[in-house]
């Protein structure tokens, strides 16, 4: 189980090309040359993260400003899982404490 205090940071926006389609969004990651086909909530998460290092709870709060996330505890758990998935793929990085 990931540490809830882990910080995650997305690559700068120009490190990828984002193309929204009908049922999915395409993300081309320039560094790796890999194309990822992603569904909600990934594009929204990346946009809400911007260039900041955030933990899951902070990101959930940001998303809740524009979206209805349903039950709050569940949301943070699911967002943590999504962040871990993105970290495994290299779309975000886990930031170790300075």
């Amino acid at each position, binding site marked *: 189980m990931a540490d809830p205090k882990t910080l995650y940071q997305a690559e700068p926006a120009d490190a990828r090309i984002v193309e929204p389609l009908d049922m999915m969004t395409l993300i081309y990651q320039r560094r790796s040359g*890999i194309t990822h*086909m992603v569904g909600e909530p990934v594009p929204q998460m990346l946009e809400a993260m911007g260039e900041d290092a955030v933990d899951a709870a902070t990101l959930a709060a940001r*998303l809740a400003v524009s979206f209805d996330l349903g039950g709050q505890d569940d949301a943070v758990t699911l967002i943590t899982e999504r962040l871990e*998935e993105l970290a495994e793929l290299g779309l975000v990085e886990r930031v170790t404490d300075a």
Partner: protein
Amino acid sequence: MSGDTPEPNDPIQMPTRRRALMLGAAGVATVVSVRPALAQTAGSVLNCEIPVPGPHGTGMNIDATGNLVAPDTPGSFVATGQKFSGEEVKRALSGQTLPGTTYEQSQAYVNYIRRLQAGQSGFTCFASLQMPR
């Protein structure tokens, strides 16, 4: 609900609702990454074959799970490097028996093929038989 303001031109003055954001399900990936399709398409333009076993297994037998084992291993199957075509292996993957083999022998051979690694003879051919997701 603080923070929600009515649309200026909306005559009914209802507060705007945030739309629901799907967060995905626990344990289910939301990202599919594109892997090179080279093996599939190149395989369809060239017929190919898979030897059982390949040169790296010359003189060895194959056990029921597809591993290479010493020739005197009980329950293992003799394999002479016989070559099967991509079509024959494709049919074997969906349940038919490889030509010239018994049912158990065919199962063992198919398991051997499934275990092939990059660099071993027949790997590219086998990779090209995989159906795209």
